[in-house]
């Protein structure tokens, strides 16, 4: 692509690309986000391309491998435009049929349509599906319209308009004011005002100034940052460019998890192309503003999501946080003023500049503006990424968008905010989700993981799970976190093994408080949350483990036994065949039994029994 030298030239290029595109030209978009790729959608893309070649349709029909569409549950997803026909669970060999029937003849293939589980109606268009209908996909919605490796695609949907606007005469202070007025708060967990952070970094003495995009998304169960980086890397770059201009920074870093190879690849391509076009480098668009971006791959440490640890890691040290008496905005990377924001926060910036702070303010609640992307996962029918306006209720997210709990089981809790978040019980389902409301019920926004749990999830086990995770990821620098979390884990483990004592609950409560007060960084200061929140709402489950030596959800191995219901057993012998220790035995067509002395509680018989005859108690 030819280098553009002025804002006007970039604008002209945008127009040129827009005009060269025929909106009526058939376009097959295949979701190639990580979820769909896992289903094999790359093969599907290849098949579509081969088929286009075979049928001599090159130039007449476009095939686009796009970023994540969010509805991972129903992948692989294919959208056919201009009609906006939505096909789901597309088979890898369906390419030929789709081109012949739908693209060329306008016929709908019934079996690929989404069926509304409530009304049993077949739904034709993406935006009519309940999963999408209740969302507000301002940041994430563009993913489906572009090939993440095509800068032209991004320009065609008006990409870099915000950059043009800013470099066309907006003063840096005015940009900061706009972001401040919009009320955008950090989406990475902290929830701090982005505008204030920018302002502090701009005003801090010392040059150079750095900006960093935190893409070290380590929360197990959250993947929105990855999907943005994979699906629309340009919007993040655009946000960073605007931020750098406002702050007065000439170097930016993107710190991305090495476990996200596709994200690394796509953002690298985006940076290269931006350099080629001349919107990264020296004297960008003739404005005298210099800026370039370096990509740093993380080493796989959860604590590096904490900003001071992340800075240490970029400097080539191990990622240990430091006490924040002085904020990174004063002294950050290489001791220079540094502004760190999360991927999703950066991606919101172009939107605010384009549409204005007032418009942005109109979405959301009093102190939380805009939308938030959540990863809706766990025991939920519609697993996927959902972008909703702040203030929507948990019930709407879980039931209207998420489609409720699989197999009609009972909702128990939703865990929001990642390992340092908290479990929210059914009684708070009508909570309006925003930064403050979540904190009030003992949870947090975090990075936006939302894990739904049903009556077969043991809350003690979940708390133990998070403690184990945090114990492993604690960097070990400060004692309350290193030793405190370790001791809490030992106590919880004892409880799940049936050796809990009544005073244990009191101990973990005060220990939790001590860890919160005494820890150096956010990881330690929030580590007890999963325990304290489950203890707050599900104390009875803890007590059942301790007093009755019983796991009500049937999860904790030491407290359960597998038995066979003689009424339901048909003597099919599957359990006997599969049992690795020959504990399940019996003759053909006769009731089987499980020898409790031999049983290792591996769960194989429970899983394989087709007659639900194996019971957990």
């Amino acid at each position, binding site marked *: 692509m030819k280098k553009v030298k002025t804002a006007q030239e970039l604008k002209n290029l945008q127009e040129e690309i827009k005009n060269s595109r025929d909106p009526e030209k058939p376009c097959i978009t295949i979701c190639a986000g990580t979820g769909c790729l*896992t289903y094999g959608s790359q093969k599907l893309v290849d098949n579509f391309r081969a088929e286009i070649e075979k049928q001599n349709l090159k130039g007449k029909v476009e095939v686009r491998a796009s970023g994540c569409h969010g509805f991972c549950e129903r992948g692989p997803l294919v959208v056919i435009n201009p009609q906006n026909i939505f096909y789901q669970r597309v088979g890898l060999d369906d390419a030929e049929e789709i081109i012949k029937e739908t693209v060329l003849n306008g016929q709908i293939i019934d079996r690929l349509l989404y069926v509304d589980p409530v009304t049993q109606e077949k739904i034709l268009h993406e935006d009519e599906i309940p999963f999408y209908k209740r969302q507000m996909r301002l940041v994430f919605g563009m993913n489906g319209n572009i090939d993440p490796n095509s800068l032209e695609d991004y320009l065609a949907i008006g990409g870099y308009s915000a950059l043009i606007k800013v470099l066309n005469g907006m003063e840096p202070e005015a940009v900061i004011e706009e972001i401040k007025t919009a009320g955008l708060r950090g989406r990475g967990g902290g929830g701090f005002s982005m505008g204030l952070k920018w302002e502090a970094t701009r005003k801090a003495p010392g040059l150079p100034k750095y900006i960093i995009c935190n893409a070290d998304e380590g929360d197990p169960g959250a993947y929105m940052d990855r999907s943005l980086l994979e699906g629309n890397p340009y919007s993040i770059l655009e946000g960073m460019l605007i931020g750098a201009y406002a702050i007065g920074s000439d170097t930016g870093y993107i710190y991305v998890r090495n476990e996200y190879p596709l994200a690394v690849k796509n953002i690298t391509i985006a940076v290269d192309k931006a350099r080629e076009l001349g919107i990264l480098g020296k004297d960008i668009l003739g404005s005298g503003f210099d800026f370039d971006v370096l990509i740093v791959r993380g080493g796989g440490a959860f604590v590096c999501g904490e900003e001071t640890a992340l800075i240490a890691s970029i400097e080539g040290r191990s990622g240990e946080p430091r006490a924040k008496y002085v904020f990174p905005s004063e002294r950050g990377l290489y001791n220079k003023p540094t502004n760190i924001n999360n991927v999703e926060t950066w991606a919101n910036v172009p939107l605010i500049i384009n549409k204005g702070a007032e418009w942005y303010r109109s979405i959301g609640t009093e102190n939380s503006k805009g939308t938030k992307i959540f990863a809706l996962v766990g025991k939920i029918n519609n697993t996927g990424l959902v972008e909703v306006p702040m203030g929507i209720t948990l019930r709407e997210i879980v039931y209207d968008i998420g489609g409720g709990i699989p197999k009609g089981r009972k909702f128990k809790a939703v865990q929001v905010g990642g390992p340092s978040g908290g479990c929210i019980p059914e009684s708070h389902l009508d909570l309006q989700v925003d930064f403050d409301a979540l904190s009030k019920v003992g949870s947090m926004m975090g990075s936006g993981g939302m894990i739904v749990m049903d009556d077969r999830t043991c809350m003690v086990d979940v708390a133990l799970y998070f403690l184990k995770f945090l114990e492993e990821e604690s960097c070990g620098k400060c004692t309350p976190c290193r030793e405190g979390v370790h001791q809490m884990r030992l106590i919880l483990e004892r409880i799940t093994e049936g050796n809990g004592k009544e005073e244990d609950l009191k101990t973990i409560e005060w220990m939790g408080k001590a860890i919160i007060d005494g820890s150096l960084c956010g990881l330690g200061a929030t580590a007890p949350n999963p325990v304290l929140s489950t203890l707050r709402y599900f104390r009875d489950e803890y007590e059942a483990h301790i007093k009755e030596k019983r796991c009500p959800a049937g999860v904790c191995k030491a407290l359960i036994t597998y038995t066979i219901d003689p009424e339901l057993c048909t003597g099919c012998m599957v359990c006997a*065949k599969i049992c690795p220790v020959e504990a399940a035995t019996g003759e053909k067509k006769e009731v089987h039994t499980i020898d409790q002395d031999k049983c290792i509680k591996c769960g194989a018989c429970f899983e*394989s029994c087709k007659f639900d005859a194996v019971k957990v108690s």
Partner: protein
Amino acid sequence: MKTRVKKIIDKYHSDKGFLVPILQDVQKEYNYLNREALNLVSAFLEVPISQLYELGTFYKAFSLEPRGRHEMKLCTGTACHVRGVSLMKDNIERILQIQAGETTPDLEFTFETVNCLGACALGPILVVDGEYHGNLSISKTNRILKKLGKKVKIDEES
């Protein structure tokens, strides 16, 4: 080995700020961080070997031991956890007779858990040599391991 390590370091302009990516590339080249390569990095960049070991033991991505021919990564993210992945973990550990994070003595298998693969719709998930196996069950792990040459009882019908 000298030229291979030098090539990696040159890629990052011998910048000490890129120690983590340099070690990542070294690990990719040799499948683990071997002593000899670390010595070379230390000499080329003039950083103490202790600093390289600090990084090598701090970050999860690094391994100081050789890794197995087959790499098995089991997702133990929260979504997979609530869907019962720990039963499958126990099953794999039992069959391979190693704990997660270890390599079998014959260097055939390295089995480890990872925190989230971001494909939660398919959870639980096991990645074997780069291939994803979604909606994992105990019997699926049995079948996968049997295919890779382990002696496992499986139920033919399922």
